């Protein structure tokens, strides 16, 4: 899949306008929608923080591991931020954009080195997850200024979420490439 492709220039115009190829537009659009949908549809009750957590991270890792860092960053970041806005926590959207975007970017960059060997995938998920947890922790502490207590509580929840999400994401990437062979070829 090529990330960008230039369109035929309009006759009479010398300036070439670059378009993203229709394949990419469709793929990124659906992946973004799926990230938002999974974030919203998979609530698992989580007792220690009396909260909920979702498997949106699994989808972010899947996008990064299966389609590369660009898809991970765009679909993970925008999809999760859109889910935040649609769920009514829009104030979190900017931080989510950075947190999940970097999560997808890093896991895509690291996880696909060496043709996606097992250790690379594990390393990618760990590094991406660390990016997400740190971004949320620092933005809650320094920008939103919620205080140490809530920031630490949320960080613990995020670590659990990222561990579960990372495992599921790696499983998804493995199973989907088996059941949808078009994905397996680079």
């Amino acid at each position, binding site marked *: 899949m090529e990330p960008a492709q230039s369109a035929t220039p309009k006759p009479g115009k010398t300036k070439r306008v670059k378009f993203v190829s229709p394949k990419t537009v469709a793929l990124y659009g659906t992946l973004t*929608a799926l990230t938002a949908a999974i974030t919203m549809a998979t609530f698992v009750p989580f007792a220690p923080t009396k909260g909920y957590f979702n498997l949106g991270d699994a989808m972010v890792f899947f996008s990064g591991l299966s389609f590369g860092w660009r898809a991970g960053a765009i679909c993970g970041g925008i999809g999760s931020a859109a889910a935040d806005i649609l769920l009514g926590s829009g104030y979190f959207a900017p931080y989510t954009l950075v947190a999940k975007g970097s999560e997808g970017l890093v896991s895509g960059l690291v996880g696909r080195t060496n043709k996606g060997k097992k250790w690379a995938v594990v390393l990618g998920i760990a590094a991406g997850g660390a990016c997400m947890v740190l971004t949320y922790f620092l933005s809650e502490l320094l920008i939103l200024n919620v205080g140490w207590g809530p920031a630490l509580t949320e960080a613990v929840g995020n670590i659990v979420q990222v561990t579960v999400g990372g495992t599921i994401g790696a499983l998804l990437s493995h199973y989907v490439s088996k059941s949808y062979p078009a994905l397996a070829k680079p």
Partner: protein
Amino acid sequence: MTGFVDLYTEADTFLHRMDPRVKIAAVLLLSILAFLLSSLYYLLVLLAFIFLLTYLAKATMSRTMFALKFVLRLMVLIIVLWPLFDPSGTPVLASLGPVKITVPAIVRGLTSAVRVGCLATVWYILMFTTSQRDLVRALVKLGLRFDFGLTLAISLRFFPTFISTIDSITDAQRARGMELGRGRLFKRSKNYVSVLVPAIVSALRTADTLALALQSRAYGARSDRTFLTEIKMRGTDYAALSVVLGLLVVPLVAKYFFSVPL
């Protein structure tokens, strides 16, 4: 699973008629204002003003409560936990070992909670009154490349579709004996793999079909764009924009030039 996927409520108020770009600007400016204010009273006034606007936007109670659910949890967490982690200030109300509960710490916790409340509710002005279509249109008008806008529009269009796909796959797997609510946290999450794999494969098939549809409609053949509906700034939009700007600039000048404690 939640009932709605779109906070937008159809109505005909001045906020619905307003240019979406003005509303985006209002959300950003009022968010900056919330960071600027550090006094509990002024933040409460701001919160009341935002609630007044959502009331004027004819937001239904159930939708507001649905949207507020996650914010309220964080606000309660801040109010309860802030004093436990902040031992500074006097008078001390109670102390137990290293933990001291002080009055200034309680006030600071309340202030921070109200600020988070303001930052959260200010978005409702935009989300309750602007359809997703208008939102994408406004972002493209503000300089977002239209192919990125199209990607965003596609994802907003398919979001509810995928939610119902996930729901029906869940039902199908349940009928085959999958138990989502059983087991410990990790086991429970792992059960979702059997839902997510079919969901992803079906989404990727949709993407393939969609790419063909886009190509067959000559997507990207022309470099210039025309729009079916143009959005234009009217007099009232400029008036609203200047009011919101004034709301930010007046406290800014008062705080940093005349050192009024805000």
